[in-house]
């Protein structure tokens, strides 16, 4: 047998090593709509950030903004906001932003 395969594991059995390879998906590419904030309504209560499943809300000191690299567009933040400060807007409206 002539082995051409280059070993994937440094161990004898299947161990992962997150310090070597930390995987990450482009979940931002999943969404069809994104949360848009009306800052005039926001009182920094933080519920959007607490309830966000991917925990991708960025703390801007007096309001929160979704990290668009990971926001899946689920809409929980907009639904849970007690002041209706967040609205889910279709991605198509931001097509020219790239």
């Amino acid at each position, binding site marked *: 047998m002539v082995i051409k395969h280059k070993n994937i594991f440094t161990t004898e059995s299947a161990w*992962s090593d997150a310090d070597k390879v930390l995987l990450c998906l482009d979940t931002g590419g999943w969404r069809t709509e994104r949360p848009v904030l009306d800052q005039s309504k926001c009182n920094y209560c933080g519920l959007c950030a607490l309830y966000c499943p991917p925990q991708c809300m960025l703390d801007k000191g007096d309001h929160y903004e979704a990290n668009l690299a990971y926001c899946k567009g689920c809409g*929980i933040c907009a639904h849970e906001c007690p002041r209706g400060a967040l609205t889910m807007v279709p991605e198509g409206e931001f097509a020219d932003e790239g």
Partner: protein
Amino acid sequence: MVETTKKRNRIFNYFSTEEKFAGGVAWCAGCPLELTARFTAKVMGDKMIFVGTPGCAAPVLHGQNIGAWHKVAYLASVMTGVPSKATGLSRYFNRIGLDATVVCFTGDGCATDVGFQPLSGAAERREKIIYLAYDNEGYMNTGNQRSSATPLGAATTTTPVGKLSRGKPTVSKNMPMVMLMHRPRYMATATLSHLEDFAKKLQKAKEMVKEGFVYLHVFSPCPVGWRIDSSLSIEVCRNAVRTNYFPLWEAEDGKPRITVEVPAPRPVTEFTKLMRKFSHLKEDGLANLQKEVDYRFSLLKSLCDAAKEEKKAKAESK
């Protein structure tokens, strides 16, 4: 801008440690399980070890070849071996004096069905492990088949709605009650709408596991399988609590107490109307479900009252 509180919401203090998971992981949009996993890792801290198993959690908890989606040490297991593996780990770490919090992280399918025997065994032996079961009321990762945690009347792919059947014909195992009967050192029910309650229970779990077995039952609805709009996941959790469908309680050494009182519980239809898995139920079906919810709550309440009475009697006898 309206006047801001300017201070960060204090609930963040419970979850203030470094995020262990990668930013983008493959849980469905709106999945409460993602919140459960991220928060559990944050509260349990650096010395946590996951024991995970096939189900909705495994594709993220377990790696792919040499890569992993998070920086927590873990041991993968088939569903029949989770709490036993956790036992092996915790016994050995204890023996060599290595600080470790071993957390079993499984779905309801493992906890109530195929992995129940070892869970019951580990609880009876008071192994120093935390067993967290995220309850999405079915085998969701394989496409929504029924488990024994699936409620009465629910539509799943193996209890479908057709001419001869109208969803699951049997009530679900009342798993929190079953585990209560094992008298673990600490157990609690929790859900994602009541984050402070959840956080406190996670913290308590981390402390109490040093003394014995800990069981956490987290209600974690599945937007895809239950047919809920992804934005409503948290509201579904909240309504589950407000209708007494999923009461929030905890118990130390088998003595339960309710942690979130619901003075005026709403009818269960406030919960079922948010999803399509019950939409085939007519008045009689919904009435049966309401009866089941009421019966379970009355059982819980009487146990809580008995525990309260005992506590009072003990205090008075001193």
